[in-house]
Structures are given as C-alpha cells and as structure tokens.
C-alpha cells in the first residue's frame, strides 16, 4: 500500500502543478507567446511531431555516440594514467583543465577548425562527458585490493590476466558511477554545443530547434523541445542506473538486493 502511494505521489504532485499552471494561464488570459499552458505544449508536441522527432534523433545520436566515445577513451586514458605515477602527474592536470573549461568558450574554436557540424557537436559533447569517466575509473584502478594484487602476483598472473580478471571487474563499479554522471553531461554538452554552433535545417538537433522556435515566439514548440530534452535526460539516466544495477547486483553493495544481502550462517 505505502509502496503504491510512494510511486504515485510524485505523479500526483506533477499533475497538481500542471493543473494550476493551466488554470492560471487561462484565468489570467496570458498570451501564448509569453507563457503557453501545458495543453498548448502537448498540442505543439503533436503538431510538430515530425519536426521534433527529426531534431530529437539528431540530439540523441550525438549524445549517445559522444557518451560511448567518452566511456571508451576515458577508461583507456585512466588505465594509461594508472600505469605510471609519472604519467598521472604529467597528464592528469590536463584532464582537469578539460573539465573546468566551459565548453561554450571552446566551441568557437572547434567550429572554426572542424567543418563537419556533426563532428563539432560530438567533440564538444565528448569534452563535457569524459572527465567523470577518467576521474572515477582512475580512482577505481587505484583502489584495487592490495592483497588481491599480491595474490595475482603470487600465482604468476600475466599482465593481461591481471587487467581483465582483477583490474576490470574491481574498477567496474567506479566506472559505472562515472558513466551515470557522464550520461547527463553528454546530453548537456550536446545541447550547449547545438546552441552555440547555431545549426539549422534537417541536421539540427532539438536544442537548435528550441532556440529557433523561441526566436519566432513559438513558445509552445520551444517548451515542447524543452520537455523532450528533460525526458531524454531522465531516460538516459534511468537506463544507465538500470545497467549499473544489473551488472553489479550479485556482488556490489551499491546494487544490493535487500532480500539476499547480509550474512547467512
């Protein structure tokens, strides 16, 4: 019973807010180019369905490819750094610089240097997403149980055996927690990049279309883009969360299933 209430409560809250919004807009006779009500936004979603779907496909494509690139290059880079203290000392500060530099300030240069706008978006989204992967994976690689390391050494494990059978699995939880953060950042990176790059036409993403619609005072359409972007972020996060639980559920505390955790004697 209480579980059902817990699940429905957030929806009920959202519904109340939306209803108040709709009523407020109607009662105050607010024009649609200032603030459209939820019903108008849903209307825009269906009127512009094809248009929005096209933009959504571009944004999702960039976000996911950039996330995959960030995951693979970030993990590889972290592994490289973990192999030598010198490499970490020399290279890690640059990873930090990459992280603290707002991508908006880098975007103009990337746009000048790279012709293909899709590649521009990928680079910028990758830049936004890669740091938590590097940082978390590196932390994981450095927290591998020293006794397990000794054991692998004692049993004459090769470098490859140690990498795949010890380092990879014991780093996985940290990598996945980096990935969950990177998922959101990749979407944010894509959105910012689209807005800065000012793409237009068929290959433009949802954020570009949002900007375009707001210039034309088509606020219902702009807000429809906004809603879609929010939902997309939610879906990406939930998917990564699910993936993480699935991969770790047998052994890691973070994904512990209450019914089988704890001690059995």
């Amino acid at each position, binding site marked *: 019973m209480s579980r059902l209430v817990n699940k429905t409560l957030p929806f009920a809250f959202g519904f109340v807010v939306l209803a108040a919004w709709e009523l407020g807009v109607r009662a105050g006779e607010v024009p649609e180019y200032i603030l459209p009500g939820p019903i108008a936004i849903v209307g825009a979603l269906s009127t512009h369905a094809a248009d929005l779907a096209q933009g959504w496909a571009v944004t999702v494509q960039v976000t996911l490819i950039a996330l995959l690139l960030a995951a693979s290059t970030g993990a590889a880079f972290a592994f490289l750094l973990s192999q030598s203290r010198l490499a970490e000392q020399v290279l890690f500060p640059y990873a930090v610089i990459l992280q603290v530099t707002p991508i908006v300030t880098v975007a103009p240069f990337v746009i000048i240097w790279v012709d293909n706008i899709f590649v521009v978006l990928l680079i910028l989204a990758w830049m936004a997403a890669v740091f938590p992967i590097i940082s978390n994976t590196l932390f994981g690689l450095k927290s591998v149980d020293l006794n397990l390391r000794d054991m692998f050494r004692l049993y004459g494990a090769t470098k490859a055996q140690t990498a795949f059978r010890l380092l990879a699995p014991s780093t996985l939880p940290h990598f996945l927690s980096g990935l969950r953060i990177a998922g959101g950042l990749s979407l944010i990176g894509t959105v910012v990049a689209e807005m800065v790059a000012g793409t237009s036409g068929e290959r433009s993403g949802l954020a570009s279309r949002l900007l375009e619609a707001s210039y034309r005072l088509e606020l219902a359409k702009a807000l429809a883009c906004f809603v879609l972007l929010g939902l997309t972020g939610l879906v990406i996060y939930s998917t990564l969360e699910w993936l993480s639980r699935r991969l770790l559920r047998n052994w890691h505390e973070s994904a*512990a299933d209450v019914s089988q955790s704890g001690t059995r004697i």
Partner: protein
Amino acid sequence: MSEPLLDLAHVSHTFPSDVRALQPIDLSIAEGSFVSLVGPSGCGKSTLLRIASGLLKPTEGRVQRSFVPRPGDMAFVFQDATLMPWATVARNVSLPLELAGVSASEARERAHTAISRVGLSEFAEAYPRQLSGGMRMRASIARAIVTNPRLLLMDEPFAALDEFTRFKLNDDLLDLWQANRWTVLFVTHSVREAVFLSERIVVMTPRPGAIAADMSVALPFPRTSELRLGHAFADECAKVTLALEHALNLGRSAA
C-alpha cells in the same frame, strides 16, 4: 636431517621509510611441518611471511627453497579472506588453476573438491558477501589448497573471527594438514591457537623482530578438539606464554 623446504639465512628487512622491520633472522622449515610464528603485533611476522612467499625481497640475506616455485606451489592466506567479490566461491577457488592455464573443466572439478574439503559445497555458487566471516575464510583456504601447494603461508587467518568459529576452523585446518602434510608457516598472536596447531613455535620479539625462542610443542598427533581441555595443553600454553613475555621484556629493555 634432510634439506629444509625453506631456509632463511640472515634475512633482514628495512622499509624504504627507514623503519627496520626485521633483524637478521635464521630460520629453517622442514618439509611437511607446521610452524607458527608468534609475537606482538608489529613485530615483523607478516613481513617475514611475505619474504618467505617471495612477494617481498629481503633487504639482506638469502631465501632458499628446496624447490623452484611454479605458480601454485606457494599459497597465501591473508587475515582478510581476500576473495574477489564479483565471483562465486567456485570461481574464486578455481582462479589459481585458471591463471595457471588448467583447462576450465579440470579447474572446476578440482575447485569443487577443494570446496568440499573445507565443508562449503552447499555454498559453491554463493557470492562472498552472502557468506559469514568464517565461511569466507573457508573459501579462502579452499583457494589456497586447490593447487596442492608445497608451502602454505597463513597470516593471522582467523584473527577476525569469534572464538567458536576460530576453534572449529582450527580443528578443520588441522584435520586437513594431518591428511595432506603441506608445509605450513602460520602467523598468529594467539598462543592457544599456535599450541593447538603447531609442531613447532617460533616466538618473536617486538620490532625490529628477532627470534626470541624456538620451541617444539610436546603434544602428540593426531590432535582433536578435546586436547584443549587437558593439562598437557595448558602446560604447553604456559611455556609459550612465558617465552612470549620474556620476548616482550627483551624488546622493552632494548628500546
């Protein structure tokens, strides 16, 4: 007397931080014997064990073995069970074999034999976090014996367990040893545990560790848990405790 399985000659160790862990130590371990190292914490017992296993190079001195160790000839049991949390008991136990390139089916079979020898068959497919501390230690022992090691090194393996579990594991370890006669070098700071298990007890001084006493335990094998209740056992414990107190005083007067 035949050639010892392990011979440490003038082995000493100083850590890079200039902390001297071990004074020069001479120690020979006969094949098939069960030898315990007893001493206060921080006396360099673990360092000595790591040197014996080859995981740590001594600063000075020479380590000689009667065999050229191949992977699996030496096994180490840590104070912590040190299992891979992402793998089942069976996978943990078969790891040493898999690393050595033993075929998957043979590794699985030998792992199951080892698991049944420590009484954990029911839990072969369980993950470490589903097990109690004592069961985890059983799995750790199964992994150590799966390769049928020449030298079994145990670093306070039962220190974190409650007394009942500890006694039970002592009994079972002794049964396994009596049946297989691996050479065991066992570190503990429990006198009762050392006396119950060992043929020979080496008492160490506080850091930097040196050998204060080297005594054999005058209790016949096979030993069973009833032994703990008798006078002979209490007498042996008293002897070792005296030697240990003497060693502590040696350390204090030197400091």
